[in-house]
């Protein structure tokens, strides 16, 4: 379960303080699929980063699976992120000089497990997404759809209970978008909590989406 209680986030823009999020309180249940809608700059991505522990809130509390992530030391929040949270980025954010397999393994490297264990795990998830035959190829030689599937495989390699997706269809064509939606639906059916930040209207009417929350100027309005 994810809980946010009166969360605020401010940034300094020059000498002025900009309020990215204002008093956000929200509760997302385990296995729920929630879509965060809002225009660019509304604060959706900041909210995802806060939940993932990638940044600290200026005030308020954020708990993930009962642990207050905003108060955890950096090493523990990284561990929580590695074990419980998978991140799907708008621009995939793959590491271009590594192969598809190596990209999927990257989140597991700090675990210091034997290579064959990591490869087995990574190949199993890549097989689910039909890219295991591309395992040895460098990711910058893969098509956009293949890169997206590598990014999803990387997000899922640790078998996370929460998936955070930031504008996951922004760089995809219609076919790839449909592929992604199918993947997300499968995840939802397997009990994974999904939090999707998007302004793509396609997501607002999907049958597996439980709630759509609108954010405007850093505040929840719906």
């Amino acid at each position, binding site marked *: 379960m994810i809980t946010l209680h009166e969360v605020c986030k401010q940034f300094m823009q020059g000498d002025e303080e900009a309020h990215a999020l204002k008093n956000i309180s929200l509760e997302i249940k385990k296995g729920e699929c929630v879509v965060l809608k809002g225009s660019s700059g509304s604060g959706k991505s900041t909210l995802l980063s806060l939940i993932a522990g*990638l940044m600290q809130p200026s005030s308020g509390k954020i708990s993930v699976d009962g642990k207050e992530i905003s108060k955890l030391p950096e090493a523990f929040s990284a561990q929580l*992120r*590695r074990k419980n949270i998978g991140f799907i980025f708008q621009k995939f*954010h793959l590491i271009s000089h590594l192969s598809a397999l190596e990209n999927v393994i990257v989140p597991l490297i700090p675990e210091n497990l034997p290579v064959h264990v990591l490869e087995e795990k990574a190949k199993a998830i890549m097989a689910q997404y039909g890219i295991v035959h591309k395992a040895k190829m460098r990711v910058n030689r893969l098509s956009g759809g293949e890169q997206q599937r590598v990014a999803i495989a*990387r997000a899922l390699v640790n078998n996370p209970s929460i998936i955070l997706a930031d504008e996951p269809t922004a760089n995809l064509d219609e076919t790839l978008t449909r592929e992604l939606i199918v993947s997300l639906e499968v995840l939802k059916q397997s009990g994974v909590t999904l939090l999707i930040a998007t302004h793509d209207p396609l997501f607002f009417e999907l049958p597996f989406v439980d709630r759509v929350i609108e954010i405007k100027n850093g505040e929840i309005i719906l």
Partner: protein
Amino acid sequence: MSFKPNFLLLDYAIRSLMRRFGKSFFIFFILSLLIFVLASVLMIADAIKLELNTTLKALPQITLQRFSAGKQSDVPLDRVEALLDIEGISAVTPRVWGYYYFKPAGVNFSIVGIDAYEEQYSATLSTLTQRFDVKLLEKENGMIIGEGVKKILEENYYTEFFNFITSEGKWQRVRIAGVFHSDLALESNDLIILPKKLVYGIFGMDESKATDIVIKVTNVKEIPTIVQKINERYPDMRAITQDDIRVSYQNIFDYKSGFFLALFSICAFAFFIIIYDKTSGLSSEEKKEIGILKAVGWSSDDILKEKFYESFTLSVSAFLVGIVVSLFYVYALQAPLLRNLFMGYSALKPSFVLPFSVDASMLVLLFLLSVPIYIAATLIPAWRASILDADEVMR
């Protein structure tokens, strides 16, 4: 931060280095070059110092030279007996020697005259007079030469004898009776030992005189007093003690060390440009990668470990390559170019082998001046980037 080795992280670090091959190779090259130059110079300096110290130990305690109107002149032999009267002096030996310029090779040989009935003033000469029959040398007009001299003479087709040109312009044919090897290469590599009679003839010297006089004392602490007594009795003589020679050698060595300083400055400048470049920050691509790694679950510690592996691999391999190449350059190739910088003195020109001398503290100093500095210069900007919000560096 625990340091249990993580081989996947090491593999990741090596791949990162290979990805930036051009930049990594440039840093590796400069760092290796820096280590190579510094290590070579220090090894040569150590080897020469070792050689000089050994030579100094073999030098006479006091050498007396005579000066007439500011010009060095030969010393009358009748002063030998008079010097023995001074209390504290245990032995007085007149020396007949000089430099002989061998024009075809452009080098100076040191010519020393010996007498079969005389006590030798240096360990090298004592050994030589025991090994070779000096009376036979006198009888057959023979000479004993150092290996360096032999090499040069052979290059000029003198394999059995050598024709000296005397001060009167006449030929003096001398047979090569023997060749000696010596550990004291600097002192004796250019040495030719001849019977005194022949040396007098070659240099056109009066046989009642010597080039200089060497003195042995019973108590080394008495040397300043004995020097004072000699100066009072013979105002035209100058006494040179072992310490004077040590200072003189040291001055020459310090002057040569100026070249080392110049080389060091150039290398250090190049190294600190790299360090400045590293500490001034990471490229946007590197920052973005750190952001991605944090987003997928790496902690700042993991990122620093990876950067540590990267910088450690690069700097330690550059250090080892630099040291190995300098060992090969100095001791296998005998340090061409740099060796001449340190020994550019014609009397020393006949070749000699640099004795092996590697100072462990020098290696440790070089390591500390290069590897930890480079690692720190890599870790500091990586640490700065790793404590930023991942969200910020990924954008």
